[in-house]
């Protein structure tokens, strides 16, 4: 009791460290036991399955991004984990303990809502303190922890502000602080930045990543934006039609999307389905000229017959000003980040994007060829395939 400035007694495992959050215990470096495990989870509404036999696991201290298009069931999964939605089957467990019979208010998971869901009749301080009050934390400690948390999210001294006066970014920070201050076992964030403008979005994203890493907070971050997912997460769970399609690191997903749907959803480039039967051991005849697939992708899904594989042509594959090549018409010249991208049209082929010099103009003709290092062989997607056959 003669240490008025620190809260809970520091654990002997934890050497005191510099940095602002004095009382927020960082999770131990390598936590024993597992984190969240979801097995065969099925959630139904009105007779149709929103989630079907879904499996997912999140390690302690890990930030997992749940990435998928609108309507794929991300929010439903999050609400089911939080205990706000009852599953029809399967299990959600934390550290090996089944959570099915644990109501939402006893799970001690934190949830950040897309629309913040700040209590309008309470000020910022009372909103952040709400969870601590529910835990019957005494008022002095409550005040101190709220102040520290607000400091951490960059809203120092905001306690007495009315939530109605907050900007979108501030409200989002308050919502985050409210969830984090209770030291939840698992933080669930449902598209928390979807409504923010780009600069604010990027700044907040970096801040949240820093705070979560500092606290070694286990977190699931839901988003439909792959750049956001890649920026914040250690691992990304790609979700499609109520199932986890694939879980991988951002790097793995980008370098080897494995199938056409993933590559399309991540916006990695143009998908081309070989038509003629000329695909054999890695030599391909394409509308952009002959292509020798690099050894790294050869031996991937068998290239023995066309139809069950396709090619991802990334912008960096498209090379200009080669002596050999095909003639292509340029359209849609646009600035992307610090580079310029144009779309190239070749007869009997889908348009492909490639990087061009800043002076390119629509309508001009260029000679292009494909560099194998920018081409990745993928499994074609059943859905895509049928669409293609209908078109032909």
């Amino acid at each position, binding site marked *: 009791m003669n240490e008025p400035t620190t809260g809970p007694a520091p654990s002997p495992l934890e050497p005191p460290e510099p940095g602002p959050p004095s009382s927020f215990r960082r999770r131990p470096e390598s936590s024993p036991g597992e984190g969240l495990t979801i097995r065969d989870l099925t959630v139904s509404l009105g007779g149709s399955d929103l989630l079907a036999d879904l499996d997912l696991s999140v390690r302690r201290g890990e930030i997992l991004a749940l990435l998928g298009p609108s309507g794929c069931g991300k929010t439903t999964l999050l609400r089911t984990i939080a205990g706000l939605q009852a599953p029809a089957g399967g299990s959600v467990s934390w550290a090996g303990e089944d959570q099915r019979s644990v109501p939402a208010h006893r799970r001690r998971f934190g949830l950040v*809502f897309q629309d913040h869901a700040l209590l309008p009749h309470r000020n910022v301080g*009372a909103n952040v303190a709400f969870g601590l009050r529910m835990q019957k934390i005494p008022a002095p400690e409550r005040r101190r922890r709220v102040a520290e948390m607000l400091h951490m999210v960059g809203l120092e001294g905001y306690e007495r502000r009315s939530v109605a006066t907050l900007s979108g970014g501030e409200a989002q920070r308050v919502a985050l602080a409210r969830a984090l201050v209770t030291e939840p076992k698992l933080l669930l964030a449902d598209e928390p930045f979807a409504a923010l403008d780009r600069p604010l979005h990027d700044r907040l994203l970096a801040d949240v990543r820093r705070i979560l890493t500092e606290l070694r907070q286990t977190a699931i971050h839901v988003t439909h934006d792959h750049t956001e997912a890649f920026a914040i997460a250690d691992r990304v769970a790609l979700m499609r039609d109520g199932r986890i399609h694939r879980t991988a690191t951002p790097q793995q997903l980008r370098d080897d999307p494995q199938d056409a749907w993933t590559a399309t959803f991540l916006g990695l480039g143009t998908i081309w389905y070989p038509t003629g039967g000329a695909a054999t051991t890695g030599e391909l005849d394409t509308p952009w000229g002959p292509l020798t697939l690099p050894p790294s992708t050869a031996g991937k899904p068998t290239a023995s017959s066309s139809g069950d594989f396709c090619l991802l042509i990334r912008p960096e594959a498209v090379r200009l000003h080669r002596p050999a090549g095909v003639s292509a018409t340029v359209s849609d010249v646009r600035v992307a980040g610090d580079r310029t991208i144009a779309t190239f049209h070749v007869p009997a082929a889908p348009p492909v994007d490639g990087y061009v010099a800043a002076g390119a103009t629509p309508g001009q003709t260029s000679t292009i060829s494909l560099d194998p290092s920018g081409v990745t062989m993928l499994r074609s997607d059943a859905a895509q395939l049928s669409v293609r056959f209908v078109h032909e």
Partner: protein
Amino acid sequence: MRSRRLAPAALAALPAAFIGIFFLYPLVGVLVRSFDAGTLLATWRNPITADVLWFTTWQAFASTGLCLVVALPTAAVLARLRFRGRRLVHALLVVPFVLPTVVVAAAFLSLMDRFGLADRFHHTVWAILAAHVFFNYAVIARSVAAYWSQLDPAPEQAAAVLGASPLRVFGAVTLPRLAPAIGAVSAIVFLFNFTSFGVILILGGPRRATLDTEIWRFAVQRLEFDTAAALALLQLLCVLVLVVGATLWQRRRHIAERLRTDTARRVRGSADRVLLAGTLGVAAAVVGLPLAMLVERSLRSGGTYTLENYRRLGQGGERLQALFVSPLAAIRHSLEFAATATAIATVGGLLVALAVSGRRKRGAAALEGAFLVPLGTSAVILGFGMLLVLDRPPLDLRLSWWLVPIAHALIGMPFVIRSVTPALAAVSPRLREAAAVLGARPARVRREVDLPLALRGLAVGAGFAFAVSLGEFGATAFVVRPERPTVPIAIFRLLGRPGEAAFGQAMAMSVILLVMTAMAVLAIDRLRPAGAADF
């Protein structure tokens, strides 16, 4: 999961028991009594009953028609023109609706007295019709204007482009589109007029009797409960037919309109200004004149302006003969009754609203509807039923102080439910979920989230319950103890006394009741949810 579903039902148990014992049980008592007595058919066959039924019906028709004629032009102007003070006019038009019937009757007595018309019009149907117009003018004008202002003007513009004259447009397009709104409010106003009690008792005199006044006369004055019960059954049947008929008509006439926000346009040109001035003039005359005359009359005694009438109230007034108690005691009784009734109605209404908000749509509507039934039943039937059945153990409440506040709470509770339920429905489920995830049990969520956010609705409902209790006359006339009169009862007794002094005092008391009611209504408008600072 199971406990969460059971909880709402448990919440409603207390108010359900309250309604069951003090509303349904008396209602059943009336039915049983009317069948048991054996005089049912004799009463119904009596030609006097036929006369009463006929008068009840035609005065209700005439009043409703007259109200429509006076109020629809006002509705048109309020709906179509935007002018400074429009919202204030809307707000002021609520006042007549919440005024006690006794005050309105007194206002019309003073109006007739002022212009020397008392001899010709007192105890005639004209005075009754005029008072009914006063009461319902605002009801019609406000509700039709609210609907009208949300109608998309495009069909009218299309008709005009197609060559229809403005009059033709109104008749062929606007009026049919307004029909559902006009029909709905007409049915409600007809119901009010059909079950009108205080106005008819005071302005109609002995020769003008409706079903409700006859029930009171037989039950309270002549103690012929069997006849009163037979008339009550007749009244209930009429109201039932009316409600069912109106509902069926409305379902048939339903028009799927895509409602817009206010489509009124700014006042421009002298034609608009004349129209507006005329409308405001009519509103002022219909609503303002009787009240002004009431205040004026209360300040007149012995031919001069004086505070004599009020002074006499303070000195005990006509206490020995008419009231048994001083007028000031009546004010105290009214305030005590109103406070108690408001407390009961607020707690009960809040519990019902919480129970309703925890349910799915269909169940919720049915549950809410069940608790709103007392609002559709005339206060006279309510009072008569209580008088009839609450006279034997274990519920021998004849002499109990509680009978009046209980009756008032029954009438006030629907107002609380109607103002709290929308407030609760507006609470985003996200907020409840946010609180739950942060560790709040379901009961705690209600206390921390729903309750504070519904507070304004609750305050409004409580204000209405209070105002309604202050002015309640129909039910009170049955269950009140002679030695504990409320202000409306005291006014009624004073009006029954001969002499200028008693009349003057009745006017003074009416003004006091008017001020008390107006203050309650103003408080409704002022109350805001308490700010946020319990950190």
